[in-house]
């Protein structure tokens, strides 16, 4: 009799286990975010504070990685919202029919045309500008000034001292690449002969590539490399504000920029919850949060941080973001060819 009871108990336990595992998932909103984890924490915590009935489950990946994952999950999407990350990846995803349109939000009405997709497949949250960050101790030791142009990066003093991310996985690096291609040679989108030569030479200056776009800033701060390339808001928040001995400069030929975007994922598990988050993310309340990280919010009512770099502070290149978004795969392939990486 006792043995029977034990056997039944075992079976019940096994079944209970099975149920927990089979994804009797939590009622929650699943999002992918390209913001750094500590920043995403802040944004998402704020959302959860004002929406106590929604539990947000998020994974942090770089924009290229989010794109890759959404492609991988196309048949069975695991997340509902793509929050943050360079919109060139959003554009590529839109081309692959991986996003869902959403034009009904108020924000969509007031957003200027250059910061949103005409079909409502993505929308801009913030703008950012590419800058150079250099370790001051390294500069002193090498006896060189911080780079102020794309050409400067090829200087012999910077050989093996530059780090940035892989353009296929990081939106930051891809934006940087687009900037290089526009600034060097012909400003028409795509590679030309001078671009090839520049990129080959630049690659030899690079000590190593990272997965994540803003890692190079911390590495420069720690003195592991001399120069990094990243977004100004990241350079401010992760480099200068942290207290690292670094200095930020911009290329005088003009710099590239990104629109940080957001999009609904097609076939999402929780479309309605995603829309609630979407609306919230464009509100002044949410966009005010960017202040502590030096990002430039696109909601005109939101506040700007002291010291943030805006369009008036730098020379901006006429980068054809839409074209670069649609042709990302080809550009990346060519990048592989030229660098051999």
């Amino acid at each position, binding site marked *: 009799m006792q043995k029977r009871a034990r056997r039944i108990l075992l079976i019940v336990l096994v079944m209970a286990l099975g149920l927990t595992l089979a994804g009797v998932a939590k009622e929650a909103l699943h999002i992918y975010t390209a913001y750094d984890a500590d920043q995403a*924490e802040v944004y998402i915590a704020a959302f959860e504070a004002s929406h106590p009935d929604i539990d947000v489950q998020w994974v942090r990946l770089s924009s290229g990685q989010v794109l*890759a994952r959404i492609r991988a999950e196309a048949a*069975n999407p695991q997340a509902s919202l793509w929050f943050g990350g360079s919109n060139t990846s959003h554009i590529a995803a839109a081309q692959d029919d991986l996003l869902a349109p959403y034009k009904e939000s108020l924000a969509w009405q007031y957003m200027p045309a250059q910061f949103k997709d005409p079909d409502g497949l993505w929308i801009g949250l913030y703008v950012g500008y590419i800058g150079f960050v250099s370790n001051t101790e390294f500069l002193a030791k090498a006896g060189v000034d911080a780079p102020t142009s794309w050409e400067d990066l090829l200087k012999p003093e910077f050989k093996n001292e530059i780090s940035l991310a892989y353009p*296929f996985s990081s939106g930051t690096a891809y934006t940087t690449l687009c900037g290089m291609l526009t600034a060097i040679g012909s400003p028409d989108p795509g590679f030309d002969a001078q671009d090839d030569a520049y990129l080959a030479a630049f690659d030899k200056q690079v000590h190593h590539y*990272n997965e994540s776009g803003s890692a190079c800033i911390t590495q420069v701060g720690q003195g592991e490399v001399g120069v990094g390339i990243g977004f100004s808001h990241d350079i401010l928040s992760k480099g200068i504000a942290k207290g*690292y001995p670094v200095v930020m400069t911009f290329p005088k030929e003009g710099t590239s920029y990104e629109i940080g975007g957001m999009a609904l994922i097609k076939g999402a598990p929780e479309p309605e919850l995603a829309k609630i988050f979407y609306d919230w993310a464009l509100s002044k309340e949410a966009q005010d949060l960017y202040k502590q990280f030096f990002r430039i919010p696109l909601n005109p009512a939101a506040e700007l941080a002291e010291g943030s770099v805006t369009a008036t502070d730098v020379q901006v290149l006429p980068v054809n973001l839409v074209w670069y978004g649609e042709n990302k795969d080809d550009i990346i392939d060519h990048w*592989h060819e030229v660098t051999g990486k």
Partner: protein
Amino acid sequence: MRFNVYQREIRGEIRRLVRDPVLLGLVAVISLLLLGFIVFPLVKVVQHSIWPKGVFSPKYFVQFFQRSYYWRPLLNSMVVGALVSLCGTAVAFLFAYGITRTDIPFKRAFRLIAIMPIVSPPFLIALAAILLLGHHGVITDALRLNWDIYGLPGLVLTETLAYFPIAFMILEGVLSKIDPSIEEAALDMGASKLRTFLTVTLPLAIPGIASAMLLVFIRSLEDFGNPVVIQGNYQVLTVAAYHAVTGMYNMPLAATLAIFMLIPTLMIFVVQKYYVARRSYITVTGKPSGIGLKSTERRVKAPILAGMVFLSVGILLMYGVVLFGSFTKLWGVDNTLTVKNYLYVFKVGGQYVVDTLEIALIATPIGGILSMLIAYLVVRKRFVGRGAMEFVSMLNFAVPGVVVGIGYILAFNTPPIQITGTALIIILVFVFRRMPVGIRDGIAQLQQIDPAIEEASSSLGAGFFRTFTRVTLPLVAPAFLSGLVYMFVRCMTAISAVVFVVSAGWQLLTVALLYEVDQANLAAAAAYGYVIIGIVFVAILLMRFVVERLFKRGFSPLSRQ
């Protein structure tokens, strides 16, 4: 003639299997599991490489040889593997010889240090390498050196330290089991100690040395954690495959890279198992002599001791600097001590700790029992397909984690079994990945038991299930529980396969560590690392306590008389 014999045997075995329903059921279930979760993903990898989208196309195979950024990582991986296997075995031999063949002091401490890297989280050693020897590392600055630890030197250094424990355990076993009378005979005949060493000891140890080198080579080839941190521009295959998946979602490319990772590891595995292991001159089941010949001269002991001390200090320094780094405010700039990083870990990663523990605690007993069952079937029972079952379940030993991860994504992202995004897939990766070690240990433990004991149980009418649960398991229990702890530790420190199968719903600590490393948040990464070490440490202590309390009665599995 042979085929008839074979046929007859098979038919006999099938008949007997049918008469023993419990055994039949067990064999069937296990075979299905092995086919589904080991063979099927590998098949998918091959399929995706050569038949992407259902059309036969060796395009990626061809491209592999044409594009340098495809084949160079393979070459690099092989170079690193060769160097690491040499260095790692050399270091391991030094430690093993010092511990088993000399009378140097502090043997227990050295042994502990030699085993430490096995229970550490991935990346830790590479992280330490950067903190100590990077461009702005502690040692680099202190000695004002101008070197670059990234790339080949860093890879060789970190992987040597990470994997020499494996070689150490093999060599320790080999050296301590050489029959001392053989060496004594040599000395008796007038050979000097050096000559004895070179002409008797070393040759007897060669199969063990070869095994150690091959196994370290495999581990180096499949290493993911260390290269991610320290490869610099010297790209290796595992990281390239990772990029192909997570950065580009180019699955046919990833599958092709996976195949090129698989070929050398499989070949080496087969060579090691079927060629080298068979040529061992030392009986494995013999008890270690312990008494063997010990070197006591200073001119032998001193350099060995010096070498071991140097390496041990290096290893301890690495762990120490990471611990220190986990308490700094801003590594490299502001070294004031703070617990901020740990607070960060528990704030951002609190859920990860829970998730990881939950999954590890479920996977561990399942994996342990399954391994023991398979070990039992393989050792004690004869049935049709036994050889195949043993081979397949050990296969994962040779399959790099990255390949497993890619295979699982390909196999389980679509029906019939669609489990990506769940905890189940992570649990499956853990269970089947760690199985070969569990099975090998299970086999060793079972061979210690006098088979008469289990035969007696059968003779008295007990079927397979009763014999296994009432007789076998209790006898192997202490070793079994220790094996469970090992399994738990591996779950806590796994990265190369699981990085592909985590999702929004279920995250793991090691992946969170990877993220911090990615972001160059070295202090936060260090904190994660020590949180993992802390959990592992507690688990090991707990298990020792349990084993000692439960088995105070002191019986031990009887050896054959």
